[in-house]
């Protein structure tokens, strides 16, 4: 549901059913709502059967990459020779994305349940939920739920009395976007700088503490619980169009819309309806200008592209961007695309871990060129330079942070060249602090 707004009839409410329902936060409340049935079912299944069910459901990673979750679980060694770990990625830091926060705030036991199911599937005894440091409230809520789950015997040496040991701990981040990258997250758990690691080795072979590890996003793990509960056919059947994108997706919609919030839609839902019907469109007197559909790291869509876009992994790619984490930033005609691209670039420059040359230097350089344009000192050549610098930042580094800076900026230059040119040609006065 579009928390903090009431559910819209066009939503398909699965994960967000209890958003805003404080009673669902407690163990008793969760059980009353059918909670922990899925975990009980899963624990009675062979781990491989759990994996196969999730695989059959076609659940894809909700953190941004969209990799099939069941396939990822299947990479884990079947013969357990050392400790296995599950890391739940709750570092939700991609500008525009705020769905995992609501899952944790309102349905902490759903996440615990999802984690425990996945832990059983991959034979992990220990789960770390890595929550970004700024999420003080979700951390409090999750910790209270964990304490309850231990007290009720859901977790511990014998999860739900089945003899399967499952421990779940919260590991609090401390202010670093890049820790949402899975290998950086593992380094951060290990007490290191959150530097992404070079791959191979992949986490399933050599993950956190050098042990086989799977990392899944909060929404992915929570979705798994519903798949176990209601079956893979049901989940697959939720897709409106594309068999490769199944189930529901929480879309965080923010920016210049009347009702920003988290909307749960089935894969294949039209973006136009999401913006205009569910979110109430842009404010009176304004018109839609652009949408960044998958968190700030993906290319910008124009109004036309956005309105024609179907929201699933393939559909958004077809429209010229990516579904990413499902964080939609909506810009109306009051938005200054040049200034906002500078803000996005500044974000990435601030968050670059400093390892790779292209990222460390390229993100900062991108900011400077954009600031130069904003201050009215830009030259036409700066636009080509930005695109070229962006190309040098794409596909050449350990992780995709540099790419994430280049993609929105490059797309904005291509799709809204007149806004950049207006600054360069003096048709627009220097903006904000650059005036």
């Amino acid at each position, binding site marked *: 549901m579009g928390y903090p707004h009431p559910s819209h009839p066009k939503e398909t409410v699965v994960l967000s059913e209890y958003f805003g329902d404080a009673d669902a936060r407690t163990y008793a409340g969760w059980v009353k709502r059918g909670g922990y049935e899925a975990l009980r079912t899963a624990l009675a299944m062979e781990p491989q059967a759990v994996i196969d069910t999730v695989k059959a459901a076609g659940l894809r990673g909700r953190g941004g990459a969209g990799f099939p979750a069941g396939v990822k679980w299947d990479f884990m060694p079947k013969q357990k020779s050392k400790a296995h770990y599950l890391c739940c990625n709750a570092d939700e830091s991609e500008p525009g994305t705020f769905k995992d926060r609501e899952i944790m705030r309102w349905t902490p036991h759903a996440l615990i349940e999802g984690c425990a199911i996945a832990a059983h599937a991959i034979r992990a005894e220990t789960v770390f939920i890595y929550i970004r440091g700024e999420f003080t409230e979700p951390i409090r809520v999750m910790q209270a739920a964990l304490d309850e789950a231990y007290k009720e015997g859901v977790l511990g040496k014998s999860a739900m009395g089945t003899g399967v040991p499952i421990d779940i701990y919260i590991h609090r981040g401390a202010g670093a976007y890049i820790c949402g990258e899975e290998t950086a997250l593992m380094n951060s758990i290990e007490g290191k700088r959150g530097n992404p690691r070079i791959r191979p080795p992949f986490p399933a072979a050599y993950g956190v503490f050098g042990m086989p590890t799977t990392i899944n996003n909060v929404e992915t793990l929570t979705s798994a619980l519903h798949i176990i509960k209601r079956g893979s056919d049901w989940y697959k059947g939720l897709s409106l169009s594309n068999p490769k994108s199944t189930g529901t997706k929480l879309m965080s919609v923010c920016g210049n819309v009347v009702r920003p919030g988290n909307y749960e839609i089935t894969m294949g839902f039209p973006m136009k309806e999401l913006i205009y019907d569910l979110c109430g469109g842009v404010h009176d007197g304004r018109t839609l200008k652009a949408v960044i559909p998958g968190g700030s790291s993906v290319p910008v869509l124009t109004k036309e592209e956005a309105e024609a876009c179907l929201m699933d992994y393939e559909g958004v790619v077809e429209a010229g961007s990516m579904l990413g984490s499902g964080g939609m930033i909506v810009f109306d005609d009051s938005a200054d695309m040049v200034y906002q691209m500078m803000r996005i670039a500044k974000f990435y420059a*601030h968050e670059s871990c*400093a*390892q*790779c040359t292209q990222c*460390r*230097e390229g993100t*900062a*350089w991108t900011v*400077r060129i954009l600031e130069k344009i904003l201050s009215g000192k830009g030259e036409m050549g700066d636009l080509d330079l930005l695109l070229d610098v962006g190309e040098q930042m794409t596909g*050449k580094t350990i992780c995709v942070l540099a790419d994430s800076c280049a993609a929105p900026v490059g797309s904005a230059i291509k799709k809204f060249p007149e806004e950049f040119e207006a600054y360069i040609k003096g048709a627009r006065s220097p903006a904000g602090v650059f005036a």
Partner: protein
Amino acid sequence: MAEQQLVTCSIDGIEVSVPKGTSVLEAAKQAGVLVPHYCYHPGLPVAGVCRMCLVEIEGIPKLQIGCATQVADGQAIRVNTSDEAQRARKGVLEFLLINHPLDCPICDQAGECELQNYVFQEGQASTRYSPTYAKRFDPVEDFGGDILYVPNRCILCTRCVRFMEHAADDTILNVSERGDRAFIGIHPDRELDHPWAGNVVDLCPVGSLLSKDFLHKARAWELDRTPSVCVGCAQGCNVNLDTRGHAVVRVRPRPNLEVNQYFMCDHGRTTYRLMNHGDRLEAPLVRETGELVAVDWDHALARAAQIVKGATGKAVLVGSASASNEALFLARRMLDGFELTAAVHVPSVGDDVPLAGVPDLALRSERVPNARGAAALGYSDDFDGALRAVAGANLVVVLDGDLDGVTPEALEQAGNVILIGTVLPDVARVARVVLPSTNVAEEDGTFVNRDGRVQRYLQAKPSPGMARPAWWILGELGMELGGGEPIGNAEEAFAELARSVAAFDGLSYGKLGVGGAVLAAATAAGVRS
């Protein structure tokens, strides 16, 4: 040992077979192709961060880093024949120069700077970074010990951090901050004075970490580089002596995986100072009416031969564990007919100071380079015994030996004293003949390290005055005494040694090559070969 599995790939069209698991970068070296790189160093764990070594591999859509990618059988890898890889490297170079000052004219690294070299080789002629932006600026920081950190020049390759963490096992450096604000930080209450810390200066690919000792002393292009062996201890680290004119200005490690990998200790780095000492013997001296007077070599050698010939019975050879095998051998052979006491002094200082992360590498407590060679050539380490024997000897030959503890009276009593050395100690002023010899930087020769590895060192600078290598002096003396073939160079002296001493059997300068070879006895004892 099991056969190593080989994989064959091609690099810029050059086919090469390498052991399975070899990185693209190392395989390319085998093919004679240098993949430009900064963060990679064969002696350190792979970081994969500079992104300079991006190469194109057929069948893989994205460029891959050569340092962390293992070659696979049948792969076609393109380094210099790939436009995309070259463009990516150009990009990295441009990015690195954004914040790097163009202060090459005052930078010690200029001329041996990997940033300068690669930019010159394949970078862009000019930057597109607008001059209106300020470059990052941080003041120079004294890291303590011998090391200065110039953050403005730092390209954050992290070699220094990895060296201190993994090789030295003393994590006192870090990467601090993030993004383009990052720099190399140091422990707030410590100095970079680890006994092996000097390696970070060598490892730094740019002029960001500098040696205070070498600061502004010379430009890299003025230096001549000569392979040598460190005389600081018995480890036998392979080194290069960098000389400008007639002075050695620094000692730096030369890779030898069997001995020192890529490193040397800070004590070893200071040894160049001894090589430049001013108070040298520059002319042969003979005693005439109570005074030592300078003469020519013919005169001096004739006098020395006369003394040796005239003596019989007990002789003492006061050797040096810093003398070459060639000299030690010839001196020993010259005195074969005597009732001989031959010994060297092996000074011991404290405990070994290991480089923790590298097996079998330490600054050894035995602070001489050739104790093992001297032992193999029949010199005892009962140096005190030899000194005591001086008083009752009929002939004393001092081969650059340490005479501390010998009284002038004892030498006086011995009477027939011949000194071959680089300096004339006061106590040896009673010698009959003094023959000036060269030091390690001024001659060719070999040492045997503590593990029995025989290693060559080469002449790096001219000798002062009339000083000659000890092997030459002893060869000439041998001629005077018994004829035979003259010894024209150190290689011939070594050949003679190898023919005569079983432990050296089969060895020659050719066989020693640049990496050395292990003594027969040492091999038998299970020492690494």
